[in-house]
């Protein structure tokens, strides 16, 4: 009886040691899961932060999605493998058998411990296995206390630690920059033909001042109404989707990087019409006195629809005529009432020093260049007076497209102009619009002489 009791005690000790080995193995598996999960989360976060600093919105969105997907897949895989790696008693006994070279002793003892006296050799097996207990001590079966996955965690921490200062440096650099350097130039010109109009985000505040001659504004109005038309081309859905993605990515990027696009300085955008198209020519709205002339050579700057104010005569009505300028309101008022002949039959080409600017709209063939060259040609000194109202070509408008239900979060940045062009080439100077004034007949000869010199 005491012999049997001793055998039972030995058996209990053997099983206890297997349990201890199992606990150690499972603790390591738990560590592995924890460290690997943290490492993946940290590494993915660091990569996404770096991408937010370095990449544009769409590239950032794509890379962030890829990184997130990879991280998610890795997390799932690690969780599954660690679940499989968890050791049951039988598995712990098998591992201990293999690592201690016990040739199945522990497995056999474990499996048959509850069997009623499996063999006459059972006491021998228990005694033999008990005698080898030092071989399968938990510390010998699994010497490691900390999982090797901790190295992965350290690597991820290093990556994270490297990414954060980089982000801080980039952020500090942005704060030190002047406000004007953080965004596009304050004054830009854009050709209306290259202008792509999309519905505005209702959550955004207008951040641009747009001025143009009336004809260009009319075309802008046409484009706005066309943009508001739901029956447009098939690419709209994809475009909207991309815009939404860009807005979302931008918002996330701003949160991650601390940028604030609302602090950007307002943009003063001058719209020009480099290529007057039939949209303007075929317009059925009331025109100014020069509306007939403008029909010849492509419409030029004119009055706003229904405004009743003649902006200028259509200098672009015939090739070689000087471009038409729309004046600010104060100048237009000053010169109001003087309206000589609308078209000068003695029109001559502009002087060589006043070459048309193709970017701004100096193309005389198309009748562009409404904003410069007025009065510089002696042949066109005495045209029809400008009767533009105050601020007819320089006023602020807020572009408001149709309200969209797809607004991003409040505080999202506004759209940047899609196509920013340098207004003048190196041979040109920014010109100021001057209204054509009515010159008294007695003074015309004198003035002409001055210019002919």
């Amino acid at each position, binding site marked *: 009886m005491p012999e049997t009791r001793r055998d039972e005690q030995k058996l209990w000790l053997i099983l206890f040691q297997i349990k201890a080995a199992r606990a150690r193995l499972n603790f390591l598996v738990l560590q592995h899961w924890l460290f690997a999960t943290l490492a993946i989360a940290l590494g993915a976060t660091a990569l996404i932060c770096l991408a937010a600093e370095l990449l544009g919105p769409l590239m950032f969105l794509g890379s962030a999605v890829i990184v997130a997907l990879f991280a998610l897949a890795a997390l799932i895989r690690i969780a599954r493998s660690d679940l499989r790696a968890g050791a049951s008693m*039988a598995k712990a006994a*098998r591992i201990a*058998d293999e690592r201690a070279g016990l*040739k*199945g*002793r522990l*497995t*056999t*003892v474990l*499996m*048959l411990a509850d069997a009623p006296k*499996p*063999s*006459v*050799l*059972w006491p*021998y*097996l228990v005694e*033999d296995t008990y005698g080898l207990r030092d071989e399968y001590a938990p510390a010998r079966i699994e010497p490691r206390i900390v999982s090797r996955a901790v190295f992965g965690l350290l690597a991820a921490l290093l990556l994270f630690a490297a990414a954060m200062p980089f982000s801080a440096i980039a952020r500090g650099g942005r704060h030190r920059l002047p406000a004007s350097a953080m965004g596009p130039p304050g004054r830009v010109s854009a050709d209306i033909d290259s202008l792509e109009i999309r519905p505005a985000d209702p959550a955004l505040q207008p951040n641009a001042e747009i001025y143009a001659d009336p004809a260009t504004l009319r075309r802008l109005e046409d484009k706005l109404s066309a943009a508001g038309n739901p029956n447009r081309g098939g690419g709209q859905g994809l475009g909207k989707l991309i815009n939404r993605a860009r807005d979302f990515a931008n918002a996330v990027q701003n949160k991650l990087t601390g940028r604030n696009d609302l602090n950007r300085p307002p943009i003063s955008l001058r719209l020009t019409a480099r290529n007057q198209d039939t949209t303007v020519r075929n317009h059925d709205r009331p025109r100014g006195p020069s509306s007939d002339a403008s029909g010849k050579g492509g419409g030029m700057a004119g009055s706003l629809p229904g405004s009743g104010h003649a902006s200028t005569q259509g200098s672009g009505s015939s090739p070689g005529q000087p471009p038409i300028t729309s004046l600010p309101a104060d100048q237009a008022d000053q010169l109001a009432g003087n309206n000589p002949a609308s078209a000068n039959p003695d029109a001559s080409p502009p002087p060589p020093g006043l070459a048309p600017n193709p970017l701004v709209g100096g193309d005389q063939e198309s009748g562009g260049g409404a904003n410069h060259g007025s009065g510089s040609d002696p042949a066109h000194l005495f045209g029809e007076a400008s009767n533009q109202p105050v601020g007819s070509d320089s006023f602020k408008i807020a572009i408001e497209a149709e309200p969209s239900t797809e607004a991003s979060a409040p505080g999202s940045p506004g759209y940047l102009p899609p196509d920013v062009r340098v207004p003048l080439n190196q041979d040109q100077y920014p010109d100021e619009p001057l209204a054509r004034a009515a010159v008294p007949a007695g003074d015309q000869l004198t003035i002409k002489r001055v210019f002919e010199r």
Partner: protein
Amino acid sequence: MNEAVAANPAETPTISDFARTFRRIQAEIHKVIVGHEQAIEELLSALFAGGHVLIEGVPGTGKTTLVKTLGQALNLSFNRIQFTVDLMPADITGTRVILSGADGRREFTFQPGPVFCHILLGDEINRATPKTQSALLEAMAELQVTVGGTTYPLAPPYFVMATLNPIEMEGTYPLPEAQLDRFLFKVRLGYPGEDELVRIISSATGPDEAAVIPVFAAGEAAARLEGLKRLVREVIVAPPIEQYAARMVRATQPDNSRVLGDMRAPIHVEAVNRYVSFGASPRGALALILGAKVRAMLDGRANISYEDIDRGAPAALEHRIMLNYSAHSDNIDATHIVEQVVKSVRAARA
């Protein structure tokens, strides 16, 4: 008187007794047989596991000498049958003959054949006809012989060793699968190496013959051997090990075997599906476990391990695998098949 002879056969042997006896028999055999360590160990394993052995080897490699030496070392009755094409079943099992009694009456009396012994050597068994070969079936499987409606038991231990000559195929009859299956192990005896050959020359051509000392005393050898065989059966097998052996045997059976029907082996071995007509029978699994038990006891263990199964697989399974024509045309033998099976099953275990 040596130690083994002095031991009391009534005592229950221990694992150390078994290992000591086994090593002593091995040593006695090696007095005569040079080399062939693995073959001799497998031979003795089959003996202690209670099975029979098929020895395959080219002529002159000591097959007959090995068996004779074993009989001498065990101090058990030993018979030898030289199988020839005209050998009849009655020549093996015995027959009823008419003998005159003391009173002058004549009656049929059973005259036991050479099969009635403890150790039987069937030399070149494939030279006999299948009918004669089959005469051994009952004796090997059931330890009895039935002649003329009367069953005669064989005295245990009963150990049959049959030799095969793989070279001379003309005038031979391949053993039927049923008989092959009754051999626990198939042992191969190859040509000895140069050093071993030198030792064979010096020992066999000298004036003194090696004297084999019986390990067991006369009269108690059978009892002691049976005691050790019972001890082998006591070796403990964990359920996962049994499953491992079963899985290994199942892996030798091709998926398209019509014997299996819809059953499919859990482990697919490409070589088996391609080259095997019939895999190992359940006797193969028994052979794996019994051989592993002997190996475990030799290692001083009361339990068997996966490694014991792996080591015994070639001897236990090779002769149970029937190859198809593709295997013969591709020069694939059963050894290769068993290697692939063991590798696959071991990999599945890991």
